[in-house]
């Protein structure tokens, strides 16, 4: 029996009359690469914002490792081991690649001191080094983040997430704005990452998801309308109707 890492029960978010997320029951199992797909406005990103504390839910509950995290602020949720990336790249634009990842690693320290010299903290340095090698960003470590290519910025964003040593990594459209070739490469990287860490991914690009996900959940108008393996989802008539448009 696989362990359930993240669970939502009847999770609901209303914005002035619009129900963005509607009574969603969702489970994320440890070790899986789970994808959420759905048309624009289906409530995927709102769901992410609820789970990571960026928004507060109207009703329902969220559990992480069997502890309730509903209504906790985002920094508390991060501390428990949930990391995320954003659909619109959110990095420290005027810090270097290295500093971007370093700051993430710093967040796991209990004490942020005002006296010691930042560059001399060795365990943070090796951790940062390790993540840059993993994402193949080590040659660009001194480049200021805003000067990185779009693809590298997206990677760096994943790197910031990883640097917080999360149990779960939530990726919000990691291939947004990438060329087909870059998308494929990123998908391979994500697949490789999923060997070490549980990943929940929102994706627009069906091809990317079909190739790598273990399990797919389909959102439409705030509700979960289907869940299953990639082949099951492809053959599901409801999904074809609302999402694939056939």
């Amino acid at each position, binding site marked *: 029996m696989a362990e359930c890492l993240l669970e939502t029960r009847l999770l609901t978010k209303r914005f002035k009359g619009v129900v963005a997320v509607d009574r969603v029951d969702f489970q994320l199992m440890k070790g899986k690469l789970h994808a959420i797909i759905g048309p624009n406005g289906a409530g995927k990103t709102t769901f992410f914002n609820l789970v990571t504390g960026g928004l507060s839910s109207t009703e329902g509950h969220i559990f992480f490792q069997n502890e309730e995290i509903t209504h906790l602020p985002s*920094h508390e949720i991060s501390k428990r081991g949930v990391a995320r990336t954003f659909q619109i790249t*959110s990095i420290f634009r005027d810090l270097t690649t290295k500093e971007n990842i370093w700051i993430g690693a710093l967040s796991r320290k209990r004490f942020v001191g005002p006296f010691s010299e930042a560059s001399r903290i060795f365990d943070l340095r090796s951790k940062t080094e390790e993540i840059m090698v993993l994402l193949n960003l080590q040659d660009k470590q001194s480049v200021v983040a805003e000067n990185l290519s779009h693809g590298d910025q997206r990677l760096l964003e994943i790197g910031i997430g990883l640097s917080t040593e999360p149990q779960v990594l939530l990726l919000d459209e990691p291939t947004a704005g990438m060329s087909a070739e870059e998308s494929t490469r990123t998908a391979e990287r994500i697949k490789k990452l999923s060997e070490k860490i549980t990943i929940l991914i929102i994706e627009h690009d069906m091809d990317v998801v079909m190739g790598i996900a273990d399990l797919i959940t389909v959102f439409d108008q705030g509700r979960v309308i289907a869940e299953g393996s990639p082949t099951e989802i492809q053959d599901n008539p409801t999904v074809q109707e609302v999402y694939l448009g056939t």
Partner: protein
Amino acid sequence: MMTRRFWFLFFLVFLILLSLPLWGSSFYMFLVTEIIALSLFAMSFDLIYGFTGMLSLGHATFFGAGSYIFTLSIIYWQANLWVALLLAINGSAIIAWVIGFFAVRARGTNFIVITIIFSLVIFYLSFYYKSITGGDDGLPLKVPDLVLGFLSISIHDNPMANYYLVLAVVSLCYLFYWRLIVSPMGRLFVAIKSNEERTQYIGFNTLKYRLISFVISGAFSGLSGALCSMTTHYTNNKLLHWTTSVDVVVWTIVGGAGTLIGPVMGACIFTFFREFISFHFKQYPIVIGMVLIFFIIFIPQGILGYLLGLIRRERK
């Protein structure tokens, strides 16, 4: 090569400052003492604006509070010089904590408005309690002697001792700030300035760190106010006025925000400017306004930021 040139410049400036009382006239010594004291105010403002990204338009509150706490504790309690200085730091820190508690919850324009409102309220309170604060007439002050073990040195009648005391205190504060900005906490301040939302999502309670930054800045602004009163033997509620808040913003933007030394250069330039131009030219605030607009449009990184950019380009 660069670092060697930097250290050379650094020691040169320090030597000039150390030897100034030997060759400078008493007028210059007084002016430079004031500038050194104001430098601490400039650096403190740079910590929250240049490093943490919070534009406060009410920093005069802490500067003035430090000056008043220093003066009043001497007048009413005959406080010892060290005690009066410590009270000024701690008192301003507490005031900064209270104002900051509300202010850091707001961002952008709202933050500016909250800091302005608090500083206006405190300014008008200082008029209301004129019997204590002296209002715009101010309060004269007899600075107590500096006690160092068996030694007792007069500060009040000895501008040279006063000069060295101010120089020593501000130098120590500079070392503290210099250390702070390269520390993990300092790096975190810069991250918050760069992208606060992301900083929250990686697990930092950014309100807490913005408040810490605000309180440190307030405490040392207060110390700066106290050192100014120690030098001028006087305090009045002009120090709490919003124009004082604007002054420190101008120094920081023109000198170069986020460089620590840039705002000090700004304080230096504008204080000299005030001293020599305002005498002959009554409308000098107009000139300051024009200079500020020029910098915001053409050199937003400030004088030092511009110079550092040139050096970096040359190295490439």
